[in-house]
């Protein structure tokens, strides 16, 4: 209550244009409750509706597998599935999720035995490993939509995921293996 009063008092002292901006930012920071379907489980979170799913997962649900890399959908480290389709969670506000099912790397398989995960192990893909959850989520989504991708299909689906260690050739080999399973 005091916070609201404080804000109202503050608003009186500012010019009309910035007052509008202040009001806008005030509304955008209102908390709201969301019932989210994450990895097959219903989860309730109370957050600012503009919060990207990346930070809802990491800060509010303690799912640390989804990584922060750039915050502007340029690197793919934060890739999750929304109803099975790969999306960049850093650009997905929690308010846009609705009833759609969110799958993170932790929920891709029960025992780390999704064909893509198995292929990643088999090809010993990872170096530092930081980008690999995002790479795996992109690859799993690709194979779901296109079970026999060509090399060009793989390039098209995977080029939004950056790996500075340079594991691209192994990733491609692993996707080919997973596709043949």
């Amino acid at each position, binding site marked *: 209550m005091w916070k609201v009063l404080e804000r109202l008092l503050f608003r009186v002292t500012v010019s009309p244009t910035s007052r509008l901006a202040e009001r806008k930012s005030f509304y955008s920071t209102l908390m709201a409750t969301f019932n989210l379907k994450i990895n097959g489980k219903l989860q309730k979170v109370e957050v600012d509706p503009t919060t990207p799913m990346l930070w809802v997962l990491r800060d509010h649900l303690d799912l640390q597998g989804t990584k922060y890399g750039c915050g502007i959908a340029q690197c793919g480290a934060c890739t999750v599935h929304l109803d099975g389709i790969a999306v960049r969670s850093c650009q997905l506000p929690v308010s846009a999720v609705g009833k759609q099912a969110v799958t993170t790397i932790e929920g891709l398989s029960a025992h780390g035995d999704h064909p893509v995960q198995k292929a990643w192990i088999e090809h010993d893909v990872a170096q530092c490993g930081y980008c*690999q959850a995002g790479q795996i989520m992109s690859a799993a989504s690709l194979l779901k939509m296109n079970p026999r991708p060509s090399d060009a299909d793989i390039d098209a689906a995977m080029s939004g995921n950056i790996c500075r260690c340079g594991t691209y050739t192994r990733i491609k080999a692993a996707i080919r293996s997973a596709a043949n399973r």
Partner: protein
Amino acid sequence: MDIEKTSYNRRSFLKVSVLSGGGMLLGFSLVAQSKPAGLKVQAALSGEGAELTSFIRITPQGQIAILSPNPEFGQNVKTAMPMIVAEELDVDWKTVVVEQAPFNTRLYGRQFTGGSQGIRQYWKSLRTAGASARQMLMEAAAQAWKVPVGEITTEAGVLHHKTSGKTAGYGAMATEAAKLPVPKEVKLKAVDTFKILSTPRQNVDGMSIVTGKPLFSLDYRQPGMLIAMMVHPPGFGQKLKSFDATAVRKMPGIRDVFSIKIFQEDYAQEIFDTRTFNELVVIVGRSTWEVMQAKKKLPVQWEPIADTVEKQNAFGQMRDKIVPAGLETTDAHYAGMKEREAQPAKELRRDGDPETAFRQAAKVLERTYTAPFLAHNSMEPLNCFAHVTAEKAFLACGIQAPEFTERAIAARLGMPIEKIDIQLTRMGGGFGRKAYGHYMVEAALISQKMKAPVKLIYSREDDMTYGIYRPMYRMTFRAAFDAAGNLTAFHVRGGGIPESPLGGSENNFPAGAIDHYLADEWTFPSNITVGAFRAPRSNFIAVAQQAFLDEVAETMGKDPIGFRLELLERAKTKPVGKNNTYEADRYAGVLKLVRDKSGWGQSSPANLHRGVAVYFCHNSYAAHVVDLSMKEGQPVVEKVTSAVDCGIVVNPEAAGNMVEGAVVDGIGNALFGNLTVKGGKPQQSNFDNYRMIRHNEAPKVIEVHFVKNEIDPTGLGEPPFPPVIAALANALYKATGKRLYSQPFQPALDKRNTGQPVQG
């Protein structure tokens, strides 16, 4: 078979003790001999701490744990180092549990990740530790069975006495073995009897990585943890003037806003301490998103810095470093380097009479190469967890140089070093950047102020614009030829902003292969902070030198590989000068291997363009042949063939991966890597304007070959990186008919495609 002494300099190197509840614990210290008296290694190995600080742990139930001393950032030491121990211990690799060792320099050495030194520095110690434990287990079995120890054999974690048919697992003998003295000498295995080493083994953390386990410091959490972010000056040459936290303090979730000084004014910075932006504004709150919003809205005023003197302590040598004032610009940097190069330089090496040879030359070839600042762009942005209380400072963090950073934290917090406790987490890349632990000092200061556990997170923009870049470089090479077209003299002049690439490499090839040789260097001061970046200095020298030698070979009408082999033959049979740092035979060895494996010299399709390069750095030799085609004016790397001599290959699976990665990373940085500044401000801040190599731009095939020998292993993280850039440059010349002298290469390729003249 090698015999290794297990103790030196009076103090024992290996320490053994009985685990509480039985079993064996073998710890070792790499630095016991260099620490002042009074620090007791034994103390750390007794009591409850023993299990934590042990190196090999064998329980009575037979569980074997091996701890890996060095921080892991993708170079796969966490698999490789325990493999070395397991080989000599003679255990079944599948049953070994690998753990990251805690940070403790008394027990585990410097625990430094960098310079491709991990395996090289620890090779003998790790083998000796494994062999000693095995020897003690055998002696325990001999005593229990009352048979001569010479009749005991081991296999995959089981002791055998063949004549009597007695067998026992290691666990059964571990408690008794731990009561025996550590053997004074142990026999190490012959290389040709290795069962684990030199066989492909998968990453011990592979499953944790593919299932998204919290391995990185960004994933580290504690109850009540707050999130902190910082605001730094938008450009170099600026510092904090003032900030107004009034509005931001009222934003939801924000707990505090304040400024911190990373180092006090009179602090003498050690080699990995940096003072890029010494005063930062910090915002602390309950969640990352809330803090990010507040960070955007915080009004901060900046002002220019004056010329500043920094005290530096380089391994005990005190000196003053002058940081110049000014808002710098990339165009001025390139112009300044050109101007500076024409002035006198500091001589590093001289053979024969180069001036006379150049004066008398029938022909001189002179070429200049440049390269920009590069940002490291590790996929995990800098971050650190810290919880500082009056009693101790606990930090969980990815750090390449923990020993140095621990000292900096202790000095800044005013706490004794014993109270600083660092948990080493896996690093999401480092490439040299995470040797500079300022972010740990920052996190510690924030936690101390907040009296709470805090995680400091850099945004990608912070990570990219905070500096510690690969320096800018410029090198000019001159080659003199006599009337018959023979190469008679060679001059290399190198410099950079603010460091020269050349010092330390002046005795590397082609020094030693040319009668008249001169190497000299210069520097150009700047307030932009630089540091180690994958294969420091070599990452430019190799490119410039190997591109130049390609052009020299062409001028002489010789095959690029044949010409280099001629020079190496000269360096071997009749070396010029002293202190040549390379072995000409091993240098030539990788060239011959890459020649044979790539089918060099054989006819290839007309649309395939090939380039070769070779380099020796960080104690290993690497050569690459790049095959590329042009598609719509853009290079498509069809295949890279790599040959590497790093001695014994510890883990061929990971070693192959490391070379493949270096090839991709090298090509990416060569084509696109570019950090420019204007008015002191970095012009790139995220992956939308700093281009990184992506899947569709990676080579289609990378074929890696290792020279087989029994030389003690050397590093692999860096050596394959520099020469691939030169091999790419040489292949691009074949494809386009134009030599490229300035990195990154992509802008020139784009200009060519749009009909604009190509620079350089």
